[in-house]
């Protein structure tokens, strides 16, 4: 077997063993899993000499391979879901997953149907042909591992304008580290609309290894508002991938708020395949202690007249490390593309680090593209102004950090309840910072 020959590190060998043991137990076609694992195995765990993983050396960070999580008991599900979701006030129709397995599901509102991924895989659901619509992700290690191990998740088929928010809640529970691989496919038909909330939660002190993939295939004139929250525990190693394949005249927005995990890597591939669409990807990351968070983003403009806006903010305390790698590709012929990408970081301690790598690659001549990256401390003059009005230093700092992150957290969201819930996460982080 090819993989055995190329996989060398103990972690890679453990992954190969895990795959060999698990593949026959996982739902659906074993063949495509083998192909996916093979794609992973060709290169193994990426390390810092692999350009896209330069700042997040997965080989060094993933020395232990946790076993695949088993389906939890009913009691385990009840325990895991006993904590109220951050988005409870938004009263979404919720599908909850515990340890990577479907646990509970509310009835879906009109305009959307949900099929559990395990069922879809077992039945060979026709919509699954839409998986991998953004082919660029295919060779990516995290994506390939997810494809090899995906256990459960959901296929959401959005056929109309859904007037109630839908939430996907992923909770990894238990005191022993486990790995999960969940996959969500959201197929949005032309003219349909959905607001999708996604949370990832796990307890502190346990090195869980969730690997999540969410794929959007968005039809013409459809609208998608997607909000994702990483609220994993302080020892988790969380890999996540978001792909979005956009038709014409689409309005797509996705934002990711990172408030947890020892190590996280969120990858985004957004492809404009139809003309005159708008896509906005934002992210806000809060780091302290030894946390490491990577956001790697590729925006492909393949159609004319599309507008993309990417805004990422990092607040880095302690010895935290932030990574932003963003690339806008404008294909030949993608005229009138308007792309703007911005990354800003504020360092709240001497030992924090931010790595910014924004790139543009443009093969069309009539485009407007810009990118920028900044990294600095809180502005002393602004702090003084606030303190001179009576705000003690911690409060003045908190106000500035909140407003700094707010731009990526709640601005442009068009959903006050969700915005407030997310700002609540920011406030909790600031309060814990002291």
């Amino acid at each position: 077997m090819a993989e055995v020959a190329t996989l060398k590190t103990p972690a890679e060998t453990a992954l190969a063993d895990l795959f060999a043991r698990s593949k026959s137990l996982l739902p659906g076609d074993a063949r495509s899993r083998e192909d996916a694992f093979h794609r992973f195995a060709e290169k193994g765990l990426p390390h810092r000499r692999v350009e896209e993983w330069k700042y997040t050396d997965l080989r060094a960070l993933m020395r232990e391979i946790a076993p695949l999580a088993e389906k939890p008991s009913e009691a385990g599900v009840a325990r895991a879901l006993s904590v109220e979701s951050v988005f409870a006030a938004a009263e979404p129709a919720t599908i909850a997953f515990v340890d990577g397995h479907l646990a509970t599901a509310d009835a879906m509102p009109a305009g959307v149907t949900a099929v559990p991924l395990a069922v879809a895989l077992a039945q060979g659901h026709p919509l699954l042909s839409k998986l991998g619509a953004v082919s660029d992700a295919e060779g990516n290690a995290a994506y390939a591992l997810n494809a090899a191990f995906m256990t459960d998740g959901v296929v959401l088929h959005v056929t109309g304008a859904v007037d109630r928010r839908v939430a996907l809640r992923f909770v990894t529970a238990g005191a022993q580290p486990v790995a999960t691989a969940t996959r969500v496919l959201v197929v949005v038909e032309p003219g349909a609309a959905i607001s999708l909330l996604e949370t990832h939660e796990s307890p502190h002190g346990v090195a869980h290894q969730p690997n999540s993939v969410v794929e959007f295939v968005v039809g013409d004139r459809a609208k998608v508002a997607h909000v994702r929250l990483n609220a994993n525990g302080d020892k988790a190693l969380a890999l996540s991938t978001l792909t979005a394949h956009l038709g014409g005249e689409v309005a797509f927005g996705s934002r990711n708020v990172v408030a947890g995990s020892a190590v996280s890597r969120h990858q985004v591939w957004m492809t404009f395949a139809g003309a005159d669409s708008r896509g906005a990807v934002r992210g806000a990351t809060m780091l302290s202690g030894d946390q490491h968070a990577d956001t790697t983003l590729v925006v492909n403009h393949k159609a004319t007249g599309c507008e993309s806006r990417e805004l990422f903010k990092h607040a880095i305390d302690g010895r935290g490390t932030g990574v932003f790698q963003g690339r806008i590709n404008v294909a030949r012929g993608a005229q009138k593309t308007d792309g703007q990408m911005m990354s800003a970081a504020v360092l709240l301690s001497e030992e924090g680090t931010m790595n910014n790598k924004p790139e543009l690659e443009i093969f069309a001549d009539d485009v407007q593209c810009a990118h920028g990256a900044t990294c600095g401390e809180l502005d002393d003059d602004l702090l003084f102004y606030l303190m001179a009005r009576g705000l003690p230093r911690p409060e003045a700092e908190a106000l500035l950090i909140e407003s700094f992150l707010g731009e990526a957290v709640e601005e442009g969201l068009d959903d006050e309840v969700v915005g407030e819930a997310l700002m609540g996460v920011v406030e909790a982080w600031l309060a814990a910072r002291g």
Partner: protein
Amino acid sequence: MLEIKNLVAEIEGKRILDGLSLTVHDGETAAIMGPNGSGKSTLSYIIAGKEDYEILDGEILLDGENILEMEASERAAAGVFLAFQYPLEIPGVATMTFLKAALNAQRRAREETELTTPEFMKAVQDAAAKLEIPRDMLKRALNVGFSGGEKKRMEILQMALLQPRMCILDETDSGLDIDALRIVSEGVNALKSDKRSFLVITHYQRLLNYIVPDTVHVMANGKIMRSGGKELAEELEANGYADYKAQEAA
């Protein structure tokens, strides 16, 4: 009472204040005039607690207590207020949020109860009405996109709301149109009381026609070169600062 005694301060090795002494009594309105770059704003920043400066000598006493060791926020709670020459823009912080946070932080520091939202709203709206500040300005991010004059009015609004006892106005008149100058001055005069003192930094006699000073001090070369009554401002308006610059050179 504010007493500044022999204050010597530097920034980046450059001496800005060079043995400055000044007393402002309770209820007194003192004006400081002086050429550009003479250190007036520096003095106001140092009183308010900006940390960029190296204080080499001297003390600043507020009612006998040395405030130099206090953080800016503690000085604010003790009643020091600086209306900035160049008020800062704070994107993402709503003016109302900021005003409430500031007021309540000061009240907490003084162990007073915090204002309820309706009490706070009323206080802000009353103060805004007096200064003819439109309500929609209060909804915007603090000072962001405000005109020069609007920013200055917002400074005085904050002063009116926070009710400090030592008010320092650094060129509040610059950027104000003729009507705004009158409105702002009336706002300041309405705050005058025998417990509250004002230190008014300005280049122009005109402001002092509205906010009439008890004393006028001429600052040059990092110290107070001369003190007098309000007629001193008129004299400066007529003669300029040539005398004071010459005095130093001699």
